[in-house]
């Protein structure tokens, strides 16, 4: 599999990442080198193996649904706000 310029621009678009033309040019070769190397894992026979999403077994943890006091100001780190709300870009 090779990433062509078109694929690279498509992936950048769905990742919401604007890239300059220089970055596209530079990344294209670098990413293909990386993907070429990644092919190596095809050599491993994994037919009888389950995927490990975690390195150890993770058990579901439950607790009582109790109210806890929260004393942070969620708006403290933004200038984009109005009254008690975050402000964001236009949706449509």
């Amino acid at each position: 599999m090779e990433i062509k310029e078109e694929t690279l621009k498509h992936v950048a678009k769905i990742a919401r990442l604007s890239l300059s033309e220089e970055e596209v040019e530079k990344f294209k070769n670098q990413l293909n080198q990386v993907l070429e190397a990644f092919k190596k894992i095809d050599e491993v026979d994994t037919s009888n193996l389950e995927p490990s999403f975690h390195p150890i077994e993770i058990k579901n943890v439950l607790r009582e649904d109790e109210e806890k006091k929260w004393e942070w100001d969620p708006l403290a780190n933004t200038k984009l706000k109005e009254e008690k709300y975050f402000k964001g870009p236009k949706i449509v």
Partner: protein
Amino acid sequence: MEEILEKAKKIQEKFSPFITIAEKVEFGKGKLSGIAISVKDNICTKNMRTTAGSKILENYVPPFDATVVEKCKREGAFIIGKTAMDEFGFGTFSTNCAFSIPKNPYDLKRSCGGSSGGAACLAAVADFPHIAIAESTGGSISCPASFCGVVGLTPTYGRVSRWGLIDYANSLDKIGCIGKTVEDVALLLSVIAGPDDFDSTVLNLPKEDFTRYLIEDVKNVRIGVPKEYFEVDEKIAKIVWDGIKILESNGASYEEISLPSTKYALYSYYIIAMAEASTNLAKFCGMRYGLELELKGNFDEYFSKVRGIGFGEEAKRRIILGTFARMAGFRDAYYLKALKVRTKIIQEFKQAFKKFDVLIAPTMPIVAPKFEEIEKLEPIEQYMMDVLTVAPNLAGIPHISIPCGFLNGLPVGMHIMADHLQEGKVLRVAYTFEKVKK
């Protein structure tokens, strides 16, 4: 007490291990009273700027402490500052940094290793009592510990709460410790380990005092020596072999073994890490916190622009590759395949630990390189440098890098790995080595 800050500033002028230095010294009472604790800059500190080494978080001031920081403060520690790192942990040399690039204590023209480079640098040069809180995803504690000649402990995945950590890859991230001695890291681990209501992936284990494993005795300890890890510079291999022989002469036994899937760990690791990173970085979009621009255009245009400006080059590469590896049509070939290879690597380790208490290998295939050498490396060549550290990180097993000798005046680290939750074995062997080597 204020002299600590003067010392920190002098260190900063010469080695640049900090991104932020505290303004005043505040010690409390407890196990860490009198010890300055530095915190890797991807771990949140209340009212102290936390950037994760990224321009996109340049002005972020968390309104809360990460659990590990809170635990240290409760034991009387003073948080001396935030240490330099590769952006979000994306790097092996602490050179992918939006802010300061730490310099190696043994040669200012060389790297400290990464991504916890500032933490290891400070641990090496601090002329006051200090232990560093660091973090490893694929080797970010061991690598800088090796390059800077200090002790780096990466605990079992889930031993320490990750709440308040700016995630790189959730199934791989582990908060750990870097210090001058094995005792330092055992002490800090005793404080930061343990369950936390805010992180459901922490293992529910009773509180433990890890300093009780500081026993100078390796009699009957069985060491496995995986041959695949010794395909490195033969001078480095010899230094580590000499270390193993020292342990043998103190009563341990060793046997050479093979871990055949080792050579695939690097690719499995990078696919999983990038896939997880690309989802984690989705939250940085110019709203709520972090870099903000004038609200212009629709959400697609605004988010893309903020992210294009705020992320560094390596972060962009990893977002692209990680998104690609998770895309419909490629997910099975890359992401799922990598997770199955991870299963195989875990199985090989588990098999080895039926027979051996610990595995020992070189930490890194090289000593600290010069900055000018790093600049010439392509991304894939940089990733290759993690070849020895990724497998224990993928498997989530505890490991420690401990100074073992010098090559051309630069430190060489020895890696000691053990089965899940066997931090005690790792600490005991490392402690004994530290004592008998002197």
